């Protein structure tokens, strides 16, 4: 079962939780100044440190050159790797859990990027899992560290704990009320950031936002996690209030049913149109207006992205072909 298929805590608003730790080996220059041979030495060292006889069967070790560009982009669409990591495969490798809840990028911006992705709001659990890998790594390898600056990273923005934690939030009611801009500036003052998680950055497609910590130096992992969790819970409470107010409006309830109607009957659906419609339907499902499991909708948001459809089809489809395939898959999922 993949992570986005399991129901969980605050799942009506929180799609997923992600924790990432950036680590580097002391004895090698950072990846940008590392040749392919040395990068491979780093990959092997980390692989041997993290994959043991007990856990080897539940992970895949994937040298990135063995993937097609479309397969790599599909992994980026699922947020398992960064778009940058997908764009260049030289000397890079991925340790990926078979159920896709752990993804460790080797020689991305840093030698090691440990990522744990859990459904719902699960910051503490996700951090604990990431920390276990971190501890396993430092048993076997000397880690780049400085007492003043903490874990040393290629980009100084990650110095300190090297921890980036985030929660992906579905906030249709807050976005509808136009409060996101104000919310975003309040959040910035607290050392956090919130931005659209999907689409091109000009607007938050599907009203899905990513809330994450910004500051990594001078704050402990526990404090950063607790801080983020507290703010996430506040935003969730605000979204719940806004939803309650919004759903008193028949005009808005009509929009939800119309979105459902289009998804059930369209012959072609572009990715952004589908995402916006699924967002409305997801709100209806979360609030008991529509009887559709949230997991079904979460799955559509992940699996109906362009490269992921190409991978599933085993060929490079045109955009128009994909829109037909997408519309049919959505129809089937909602039948």
């Amino acid at each position, binding site marked *: 079962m993949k992570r986005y298929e399991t129901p969980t805590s605050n799942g009506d608003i929180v799609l997923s939780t992600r924790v990432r730790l950036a680590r580097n080996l002391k004895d090698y220059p950072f990846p940008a100044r590392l040749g392919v041979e040395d990068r491979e030495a780093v990959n092997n060292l980390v692989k041997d440190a993290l994959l043991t006889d007990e856990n080897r069967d539940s992970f895949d070790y994937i040298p990135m050159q063995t993937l097609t560009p479309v397969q790599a*982009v599909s992994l*980026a669409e699922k947020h398992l790797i960064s778009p940058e990591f997908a*764009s260049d495969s030289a000397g890079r490798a991925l340790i990926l859990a078979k159920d896709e809840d752990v993804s460790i990028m080797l020689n991305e911006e840093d030698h090691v990027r440990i990522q744990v992705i859990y459904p719902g709001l699960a910051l503490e659990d996700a951090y604990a899992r990431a920390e276990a890998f971190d501890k396993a790594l430092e*048993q076997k390898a000397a880690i780049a560290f400085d007492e003043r600056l903490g874990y040393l990273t290629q*980009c100084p923005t990650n110095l300190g*704990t090297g921890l980036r934690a985030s929660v992906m939030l579905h906030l249709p009611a807050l976005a509808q009320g136009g409060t996101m801009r104000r919310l975003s500036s309040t959040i910035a003052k607290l050392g956090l950031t919130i931005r659209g998680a999907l689409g*091109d950055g000009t607007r938050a497609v599907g009203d899905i936002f990513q809330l994450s910590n910004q500051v990594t130096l*001078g704050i402990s992992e526990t404090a950063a996690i607790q801080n983020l969790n507290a703010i996430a819970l506040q935003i969730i409470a605000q979204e719940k209030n806004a939803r309650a107010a919004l759903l008193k409006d028949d005009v808005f309830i009509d929009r939800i049913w119309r979105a459902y109607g289009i998804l059930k009957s369209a012959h072609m659906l572009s990715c952004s149109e589908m995402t916006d419609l699924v967002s409305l339907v997801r709100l209806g499902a979360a609030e008991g207006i529509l009887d559709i499991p949230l997991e079904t909708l979460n799955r559509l948001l992940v699996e109906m992205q362009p490269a992921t459809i190409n991978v599933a089809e085993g060929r490079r489809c045109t955009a128009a072909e994909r829109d037909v395939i997408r519309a049919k898959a959505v129809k089937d999922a909602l039948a």
Partner: protein
Amino acid sequence: MLCQNCKKQEATTHIKRVINGETTEKHLCTDCAKKQGYDYDGFFDDFSLSIPNIFSGFFSDTPLALAGLRQDRCATCGSSFDEIIRTGMVGCADCYERFYDRLLPSIQRIHGRAKHAGRIPYTVVDDKPKAAADEKPQAEPTTEEKIATLQAEMQKAIEAQNFEQAAVLRDNIKALKGEA
């Protein structure tokens, strides 16, 4: 429009990049786009403003960045401070030590005047208590501890049939017991 690269086929992929306010456009045919790594249905266009470019903005107006300190290089990886500023990427762990004073203003601009408050790797933790543990027994072993050590040594001496040394140790133990 023909492909800018091969100038033979019709351009089908159009790439517009805005980096630090500067717009560049590329028009390529499908084959050339593929060769140049744009084989992603426009997926990467949104990421053309790369993180290093954003970060180098943090450095650009530090007075030290402009000072004539360009020739120093990190002995480990060969990076100069100039290169670090330009790319926004530090070369290796030792660069942080080598260029600490010059990096600090930029680090503080990102993180404030902060000192690391999080986890410390085992390798670093282990070194310290070990050093402390080495010093402690030398500084203040109690009489009982001394006796225990000598008794263990005596036992070893007996097992090795080194009776002369065992006798010396026995006398020492007796003397210590007298003290206590």
